[in-house]
């Protein structure tokens, strides 16, 4: 893994190796994340694309070690952030040294990601206060103003003592971003940060994240279900289906030359602006029940190219081209 050939810019800030996070329920176990491996380099954006329930959010929470308790638990794997395996750390160290400082998160819904009863200054300031980076009221205030300015909040001095409900949706997402970047983490996880925003605002946030990344060189995991957004922001894309990564590669490759039938189907089934009035491809069937996933390829039941082997054996991750891997028996065959 160290000699990862795809490492484009900088060193990997995150390496995830065979991560398995399961949700344990009385009636069975949901294998929400079931053997996921990928890495993120500094200054790079990795898109984690997939439908709801494909395990992308659970992957990101596993990295932060914030999987919902009790119930969800990371059962195996390795998560290295900046060379530290966070799965070995105790909770106290996670709080003190990792979360916020090494890795942080921008959560999905700007309307619910801010605590309604504390002021913006208070909430953004928490990142400084609890990491002992900045001491004293006025110093923290100043730091907050600075970081709010970095996320392009107009006249942050005046809006510091406002409460979240006094901010618009887009502004709130900027505040959340400010909280995430406050302590200059090396890795940032953005979990569908724009899917609840209107397109005109989405554009603003995407641009902001790009700019922040350029300024700080932070590694970014961008989780989305929208192929368009992924194409817009990501350097590399990992496509998840039913708890596993089915395809991973450069963004150009994935969109131009998708190798996994799921990726292909997904791209064919969404309407593209400018390509009007063509009949869309529709992926038949429904995603599998994650409590009883099929033993073979999880996409087998919906795949137009399904073979007998697909139903019995899970296809290994196969290199299609350098830096482009897909988990499909077809790839192995043709490639």
């Amino acid at each position, binding site marked *: 893994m160290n000699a990862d050939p795809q490492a484009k810019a900088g060193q990997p800030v995150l390496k995830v190796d065979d991560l398995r996070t399961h949700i344990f329920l009385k009636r069975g176990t949901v294998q929400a994340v079931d053997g996921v491996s990928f890495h993120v380099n500094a200054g790079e954006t990795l898109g984690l694309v997939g439908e709801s329930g494909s395990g992308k959010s659970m992957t990101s929470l596993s990295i932060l070690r914030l999987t919902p308790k009790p119930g969800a638990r990371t059962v195996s794997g390795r998560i290295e952030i900046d060379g530290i395996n966070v799965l070995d750390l105790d909770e106290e160290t996670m709080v003190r040294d990792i979360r916020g400082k090494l890795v942080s998160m921008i959560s999905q819904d700007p309307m619910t990601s801010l605590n*309604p009863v504390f002021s913006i200054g208070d909430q953004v300031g928490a990142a400084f206060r609890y990491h002992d980076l900045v001491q004293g009221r006025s110093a923290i205030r100043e730091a907050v103003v600075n970081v709010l300015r970095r996320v392009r909040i107009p006249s942050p001095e005046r809006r510091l003592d406002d409460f979240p409900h006094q901010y618009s949706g887009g502004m709130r997402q900027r505040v959340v971003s400010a909280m995430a970047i406050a302590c200059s983490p090396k890795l940032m996880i953005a979990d569908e940060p724009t899917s609840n925003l209107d397109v005109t605002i989405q554009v603003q946030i995407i641009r902001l994240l790009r700019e922040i990344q350029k300024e700080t060189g932070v590694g970014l995991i961008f989780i989305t279900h929208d192929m368009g957004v992924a194409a817009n922001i990501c350097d590399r894309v990992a496509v998840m289906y039913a708890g596993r990564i089915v395809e991973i590669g450069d963004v150009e490759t994935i969109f131009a030359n998708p190798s996994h039938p799921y990726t292909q189907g997904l791209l064919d089934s969404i309407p593209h602006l400018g390509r009007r009035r063509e009949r869309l491809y529709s992926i038949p069937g429904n995603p599998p029940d994650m409590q009883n996933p099929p033993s073979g390829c999880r996409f087998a039941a919906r795949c137009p190219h399904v073979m007998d082997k697909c139903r019995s054996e899970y296809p290994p991750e196969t290199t299609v081209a350098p830096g482009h891997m897909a988990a499909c028996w077809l790839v192995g065959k043709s490639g």
Partner: protein
Amino acid sequence: MLNYLIKRILQGVISIIGASAIIFAISRLDDPTLLLLPIDATPEMVENLRQRLGLDLPIVQQYLIFLGNALQGDFGNSYRWEQPALQLILDRLPATLELAFAGLVFALALAIPFGVLSAVYRDSWFDNFAKLFAMLGQAMPNFWVGLLLILFVSVNLGWLPAFGREGFDSLIMPAIALGWYPVAAMTRMLRSTMLDVLDSDHVRMARAIGVPNRVVVWKYALRNAAVPLVTMLGIYFANMLSGAFVVEVIFAWPGMGRMVVEAMFARDFPLLQVGVLFSAILFVVVNLLVDLSYGVLDPRIRHD
């Protein structure tokens, strides 16, 4: 906020007038004169008394007279004490308020740690213990708790005074008897609110930037749970008042509850009326305060 306040006060006034009309109407279903005279009183004496009390008038007229006088602060004389009923109640009000307040404090003192820790350590032994302990309070009539406390703590052990209102000691047992009941509901509400808050995006966000658990729980989350908790306090205040009627009797607590209970047995309607009306007024006022506190507790409402 001001509009809202005016609206709430108006609503409160409507409630109180409505309550007074209902209580008045019910009270007039019975004729209390026999209880107010010696057993060998002559029919003329009964008639004389009925006239003096105004009970011979049509009920609507009686109510309008009552309402008119009440607006001038005259709630009539107690039949039995022949003193202004309002004064009798007002004299006793502080004791009742003290008891209700103590009951709420006791309930909160248990419910807050129970609710918060149950949510944090959900499904643990503590969660189960807190649930059981709280539920026990909800499963026992407060008078029974009171009697058992008197029997064991006062009579057998001699630790606390069994009656009266003298100092903090005498407040403990009535407060327990009164305050235990709502603990379960408050704990459950807090636990479930805390669970929701602890599962919420903003708490996850706070954790994600490295805010320590104790801060998340005791500052971020608890503060979010404050509004539902205070709302509940407002509603349970009525429960405390209701409970006080019984607990005061058991512990010989000199509050208005006991007086009102006796007024019922004596069919002392003016006193009963004022007592019940004051409970209603207290309830309305407390809930108005609760509504006002939302503004303090929740900035969204403050700026509305």
